[in-house]
């Protein structure tokens, strides 16, 4: 029975999507069906963990019972190994959390029947993409994901610009998937099969121009899907304008489809990852992505657009680490992918809570919300520290692994390029922390605006997913070793020793006839400072800071609200030049501190979010002029960048892989 679970977990999601389309208007029935569907799928995938991840089996399943005959695969197969199951579990968890969140977030909007239908279809197609073993089926699932994601983006009736973001997203994803289909056609011409396991056995012996061009085109399709560098502007636009529960899915799960595709393509199907040309190409694309993503993020004025650029930058980390072809590198990349879904989802959910309460997402007009929305503030602080890579949280674990992997690769090969990658990774991490300090100050800390005086905390049904995600962030940061050993190590092993993948589908002994061997990648030991030590250090410093604040006391004296006049606030006492022996009115600053303001009045001043790091932006203003000019917002420009990148990839493949 357990072998049916992969197909059933996909079919139950599609089935409920169609059921909801029939019962669209009744709200309670619709919510119950959606919740039950996602929970059932999650339970079914969780039942596969003991046999696939811990025992290391590969579940192979032929649709319609069409087993391979005389060495050729004639049916569509579903194949679940640890790599697929890791991504599928991650995906269905993200969908579960987003479904619960959207019960609260989308309440009261119209046409929710369509929203839930599209949402469940998106969920079913993503899980199907990860579990399938047939390359055309992967293309179909990617198309369904594109359609549903575009429609969900366009369904945001609050923002006027949602429809424009959806259009650009559709054009961009269509280019990618058409290129992928052309690549599949070329691959079929050469190999006459569409099954991933059989392709993995046949291809390494028969590289010619056709298969190289097919590799370039399919890789382009997956790079478009994972928002690599010239393809990212449409993704950023779409993540900004989508409703927040959908933004979390777009940024957390849809980008991972591209990551899974790239890893499956280079490690298992084509097995080209052990040539240094492909390694350098993938790492170069990842490095440029991470750098451009974070520098553009520092200059943004809109909350969700900033988070979207950070998503692009973290995806750069993931691809740069996956392109190293060492076990530690792939381990770091997969761990960072899991962490990215968790903390980026948390950040987008908090952004959604802020937008739901205040109605605006402009950094310059928010401020001081931590007094009114304390739980959202705590969750956001946890997410911000995770993404910056601070110790007790999960971002620290995966980023440290990435630094160590790139550094070891630099020592191993002696190539100067990897040294540059290490330095860039560290610098980008610092800039990530900088921009999240900016966001924290301008949204949560600082002074509360008058028009946001009466915002309330969001409803509990929106707080539950945020709480679960914060807990998971801390949990995977503190208990990293167990999590790593159970989930990630088995996925890395299945990606490197991938003989079982071929044998599982095509019968034992198939790989021997083709002379396959697994890839070798080095050992899996990594070491870094114990997080308990870091946690206790953090707590000690925090306790010391609190103690110092309590002993020294705060400066008395208050700042003015905007629009208030100094004299009416402080009475008619005059702040004369002679500050000895004067009796002050209550509320005046104490005399021994008056030397610090040289007698000036205390005035209300709100530092808008985009005023921080002004000096940095001024020093780099030529760079920013060029980059912000390139993100011009016109669909023709984005298509030109896509065409340039496609041609560069194809030419690169021909030059370096002959």
């Amino acid at each position: 029975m357990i072998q049916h679970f992969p197909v059933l977990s996909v079919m139950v999601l599609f089935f409920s999507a169609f059921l909801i389309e029939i019962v669209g208007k009744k709200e309670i029935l619709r919510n119950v069906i959606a919740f039950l569907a996602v929970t059932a799928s999650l339970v079914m995938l969780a039942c596969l963990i003991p046999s696939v991840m811990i025992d290391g089996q590969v579940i192979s399943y032929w649709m319609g019972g069409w087993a391979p005959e005389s060495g050729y695969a004639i049916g569509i197969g579903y194949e679940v190994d640890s790599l697929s199951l890791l991504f599928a579990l991650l995906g269905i968890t993200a969908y579960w959390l987003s479904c619960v969140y959207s019960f609260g977030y989308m309440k009261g909007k119209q046409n929710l029947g369509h929203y839930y239908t599209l949402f469940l279809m998106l969920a079913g197609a993503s899980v199907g993409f990860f579990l399938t073993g047939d390359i055309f089926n992967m293309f179909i699932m990617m198309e369904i994901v594109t359609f549903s994601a575009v429609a969900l983006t366009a369904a945001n009736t609050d923002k006027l610009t949602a429809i424009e973001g959806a259009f650009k997203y559709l054009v961009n994803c269509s280019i990618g998937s058409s290129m992928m289909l052309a690549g599949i056609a070329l691959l079929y011409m050469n190999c006459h099969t569409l099954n991933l396991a059989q392709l993995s056995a046949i291809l390494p012996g028969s590289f010619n121009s056709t298969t190289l061009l097919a590799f370039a085109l399919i890789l382009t399709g997956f790079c478009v899907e994972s928002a690599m560098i010239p393809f990212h502007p449409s993704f950023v636009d779409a993540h900004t304008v989508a409703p927040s529960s959908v933004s979390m899915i777009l940024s957390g799960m849809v980008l991972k489809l591209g990551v899974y595709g790239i890893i499956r393509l280079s490690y298992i199907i084509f097995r080209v990852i052990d040539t240094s040309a492909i390694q350098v190409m993938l790492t170069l694309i990842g490095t440029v992505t991470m750098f451009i993503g974070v520098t553009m993020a520092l200059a943004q004025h809109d909350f969700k657009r900033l988070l979207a650029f950070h998503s692009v930058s973290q995806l750069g980390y993931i691809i740069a680490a996956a392109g190293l072809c060492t076990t530690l590198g792939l381990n770091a990349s997969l761990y960072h992918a899991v962490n990215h879904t968790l903390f980026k989802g948390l950040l987008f959910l908090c952004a959604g809570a802020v937008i739901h309460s205040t109605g605006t997402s402009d950094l310059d007009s928010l401020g001081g919300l931590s007094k009114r929305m304390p739980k959202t503030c705590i969750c956001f602080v946890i997410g911000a520290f995770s993404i910056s890579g601070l110790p007790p949280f999960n971002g620290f674990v995966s980023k440290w692994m990435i630094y160590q992997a790139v550094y070891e690769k630099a020592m191993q090969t002696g190539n100067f390029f990897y040294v540059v990658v290490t330095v860039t990774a560290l610098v980008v991490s610092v800039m990530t922390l900088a921009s999240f300090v900016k966001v924290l100050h301008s949204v949560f800390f600082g002074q509360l605006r008058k028009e946001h005086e009466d915002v309330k905390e969001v409803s509990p049904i929106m707080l539950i997913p945020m709480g679960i995600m914060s807990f998971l962030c801390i949990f995977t940061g503190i208990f990293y070793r167990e999590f790593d050993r159970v989930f990630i190590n088995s996925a890395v092993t299945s990606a490197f020793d991938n003989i079982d993948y071929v044998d599982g589908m095509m019968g034992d002994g198939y790989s021997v006839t083709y002379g396959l061997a697994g890839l070798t990648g080095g050992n899996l030991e990594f070491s870094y400072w114990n997080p308990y030590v870091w946690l206790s250090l953090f707590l000690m410093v925090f306790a010391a800071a609190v103690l110092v604040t309590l002993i020294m006391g705060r400066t008395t004296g208050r700042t003015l609200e905007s629009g208030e006049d100094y004299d009416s606030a402080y009475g008619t006492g005059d702040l004369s030049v002679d500050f000895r022996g004067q009796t002050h009115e209550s509320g005046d600053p104490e005399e021994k501190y008056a030397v610090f303001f040289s007698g000036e009045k205390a005035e209300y001043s709100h530092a808008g979010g985009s005023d921080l790091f002004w000096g940095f932006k001024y020093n780099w203003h030529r760079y920013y002029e060029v980059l912000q000019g390139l993100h011009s917002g016109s669909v023709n420009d984005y298509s030109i960048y896509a065409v340039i990148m496609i041609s560069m990839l194809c030419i690169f493949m021909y030059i370096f892989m002959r």
Partner: protein
Amino acid sequence: MILGNYIVSVFLIVLGLWTLCTQKNLIKVVLGLGIIDYGVNLLIVSAGFNEGGTAPIYNLAELARREAVFFVDPVPQALTLTSIVIGACVDAMALSIVIMIKKRYGTVDADEVRRLRG
């Protein structure tokens, strides 16, 4: 191996990409997306050609005689069918989005529909 088909399909793909890059009217951009899809469909269906083969359907006379018949490959034909459906649906969805853009922005010029930038 029909060389003419492959040349025309590459020409269609390049023509579609050129339309996406240079045309300002959003409806022409949608047409460009469609042209890329048609080019790729032609590529797929030409991939399964066997010279001298017949259509891949058994009829009763051939089955009664139980002889081997030389077919063209039916798998790319199934792939092409699915891909045509996808192309039609992409065009339908893109056109309905363009209609909504016209309703909200008042224009379908790509240089005017640019409020998300920078």
